[in-house]
Every structure is written in structure tokens, then in C-alpha cells.
């Protein structure tokens, strides 16, 4: 195969970049087991151990990284974060969090099973779609979370906590001002819809 000499150095650079990327993701995979994440989040990062634990597979890397940092520093301490998740992070460094987040982002998100129900209309009309995108899977910024296909109980806690201000880390200040548009009763069908997005 003929390689244009002008392209060659670039091709080599690209090769190096390619070689580096899987190595990092592989680190993340190893870390995910070694640091005990699998115990709670499941080997595929899609099978949470208990009610109220989140799925992590296919999450935006930037978002997941920030959350780990914030949980470790205590900036995010709502729900089960402080008791359950924080202690694990004492043993995880920032570069390791980065590798973990990059790895998690490569995993396929589990497709839901079905009927959208009444929540879809609320999702579309209560501004959620602007930031979290169609079906909760196309957030407007890389730092925003994918929420489609997430565990229902986890979604419920986070929505309530962002609404009440119990969770106010990261970019929650973008979302908090719209949460008075949904009542507690409306949060339930929205979570139902998001959890079941196909």
C-alpha cells in the first residue's frame, strides 16, 4: 500500500494515539474491577446491586468524572452518595477517575423495555428535553448527564434532590431553576418514562 509521505508522520501520530486510547480504556476496565466498583454497579456497569444505585454504562465521560470528584470532595452528598459511594473514592486518584470515566463511556447503555406512558409528554413540555435531549440520551453539553435508560429509583432521588437543593454540585444550578415547573406527582411518570426508554 502506498502511503503519501506527507501523510505518513500523521499516520504514525494517529497510530500512537490509537495505541494510547485503548490502553487507557483498558486501565479503566481494570480499575473498575480492582477498586471494587463492580460490587455495587455490576460488571457491565448496568446491573446495580441495590435499589437506588445508578447505571453507569454509556454515561458521558466528562459528567461521570465531575461526579466522582464531587462525591469524593463532599460537594455532592445527597442520597446514598456520602455513605455508600464516597468511602470507595478515598482510594481513587484523579487520573484513575478520568480513566474510569473514559472506560464507562465506551460501554453500551442498556435499552429499556417499553411503553413511554404519560411521562413523555411531561418530559417534552417541562423543558427537560432542551438540556437532556431526545429520550434523555443526547445532552446539550458533554458535562451534562445522559438520563435515558437510568434506574427509576435513582432518577427519582436525583430529581427530588436537585429540586429541593439537597444536591447542588456541578452544573445543577442550570437545572434547579426549572424544577418548580414539575410537582412531586409529575416526577414519578417522568422517571418511569426515562427508565424505560428504548
Amino acid at each position: 500500500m502506498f502511503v503519501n509521505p506527507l501523510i505518513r508522520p500523521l499516520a504514525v501520530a494517529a497510530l500512537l494515539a490509537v495505541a494510547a486510547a485503548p490502553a487507557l480504556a483498558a486501565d479503566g476496565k481494570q480499575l473498575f474491577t480492582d477498586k471494587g466498583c463492580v460490587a455495587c454497579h455490576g460488571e457491565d456497569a448496568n446491573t446495580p446491586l441495590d435499589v437506588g444505585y445508578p447505571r453507569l454504562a454509556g454515561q458521558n465521560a466528562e459528567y461521570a468524572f465531575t461526579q466522582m470528584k464531587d462525591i469524593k470532595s463532599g460537594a455532592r452528598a445527597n442520597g446514598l452518595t456520602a455513605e455508600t459511594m464516597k468511602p470507595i473514592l478515598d482510594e481513587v486518584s484523579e487520573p484513575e477517575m478520568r480513566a474510569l470515566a473514559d472506560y464507562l463511556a465506551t460501554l453500551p447503555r442498556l435499552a429499556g423495555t417499553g411503553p413511554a406512558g404519560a411521562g413523555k409528554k411531561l418530559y417534552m413540555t417541562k423543558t427537560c428535553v432542551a438540556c437532556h435531549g431526545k429520550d434523555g440520551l443526547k445532552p446539550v453539553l458533554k458535562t451534562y448527564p445522559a438520563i435515558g435508560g437510568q434506574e427509576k429509583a435513582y432518577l427519582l432521588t436525583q430529581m427530588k434532590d436537585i429540586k429541593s437543593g439537597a444536591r447542588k454540585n456541578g452544573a445543577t444550578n442550570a437545572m434547579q431553576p426549572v424544577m418548580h415547573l414539575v410537582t412531586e406527582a409529575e416526577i414519578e411518570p417522568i422517571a418511569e418514562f426515562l427508565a424505560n426508554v428504548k
Partner: protein
Amino acid sequence: MKTIIRAAAVAFVATAAFGTIALAGPRDKPAQGKSVGDKDYQWNAGGGEQDEALHLKPDLKNGRDVYEVCAACHLPEGWGLTDGTFPQLAGQHNKVIIKQLADIRALNRDNPTMYPFALPDQIGGPQAIADVAAYIGTLKMNPEPGMGDGKDLEHGKKLYKDNCARCHGDHGQGDNAKYYPRLEGQHYNYLVRQYQWIKEGKRRNANPDMIKQIQWMTERDTKAVLDYVSRIKPPADKIGPKGWKNPDFE
């Protein structure tokens, strides 16, 4: 070996593609502008994309497409919410819309909720700004905007005449050429919030003359004057029918 080279080539194409995306990112992110109080600050200095947007010929069809995401918050009709969470955009002057977008983009207004939607990789460049502003210009105003308690309107009327009319006009119509916003028919709660933020300097490219003008106002004065002006009915040809739904987004 062959396969390795092929893989490299594929990877090259891939990196090249990502490369352009990466390049587009930082260059498109507008820098924070100078703020009231900074050395050499000049109100509404404009320049750059703001000026460009003002001089481009708008494409309404593209404006509708850009507006689609805005509609999630400002509503398809541009009517906002009567509780003031989202301002009414319908009826606002073209130049005001463009300047405020530029200010939100430049982080001169604290608007974390809307910030991502003002960014170039969401809206696009000056042309798209011109387009969406022109589309907003086609929308008729909310016939039932949010109001205050209506208890102190005489006091408000006098204050308005003495302190605000010279810029915002005798009935709150504003002035497109001078970037003075229309206040009549805007949701009362939204006006109260913005007024407070302008007074406190939280809107960092707000008109310095106005900031000076309003410093002495008490809470009673503020409520009265804004209740008064938000209640003024804009000219009939600017108002939409009750319950109107924008057919562009059916």
C-alpha cells in the same frame, strides 16, 4: 503490516474528523466581555458578531429551525411563563434580542439555565443569530402576561413618567435603535428580577445611566413602577389572540 497501515489510515481519517471538531470548539467560544466597572468599559460596545448579526439579511426558515430548541423554555409562541421563569421574547425589539443573546453568550448575564443554548455550537454564528432574532420578530405577544398585585399603580405611574419614560418610552415601548427594551406586556416577575440584577450590577453590560437612575428606589417604588409598566397594553397589532398556538411547531 498491511493491516496495521490500514488501521492507521482509518484512524487517521477518524482523528482528522475529530480534529476539526476539536478546532471548532475553543475558537467558537466567545470571550467574556468587559463589564461595568472595568477599565475602558463602554456600554454596549458591541463589535464582532453582534455587529455582524445586525447587518446580515435574515433567513426566517432557518430562524424557525434555530428557534425550535428555544421553544422548550420560551414556548413555541415566544410567550415565556407568566411566573417570570422564562421571559416573553415575542414583541421584543430585534436589536435588544441580539444584544441580550450576545451578553448571555459573553457571560455578562448570569443565566446558567440558558447559557449552553446561546453558544455558537448550538445556535451557530452571526447569521443564525440574525435568523432567530428575525423569527422571534414575527411572533405576536402574549395577551395575558404575568402582573403584580395592582395596588400601587398611581405611584408607579408617576415614578415611571419621571424616571423611565425618557428611555423606555411613554408607554414602555422601548426603542429598537437605542437597544432600550420593551417593558410593556413583559411578565412582571421577570422585570422585577432583571431590575434588581441591573441595580446590583449582576447584569454586567446593563446601561450605566439606568443603573445610576434607579439606585435610590425603594422596594415599594420598584414594585409599583414595574407593575405599572408591565400592565400597559402594547398596541393591538402586536398582540396575539388568547390561546394562540404557533402552527410552526404543531
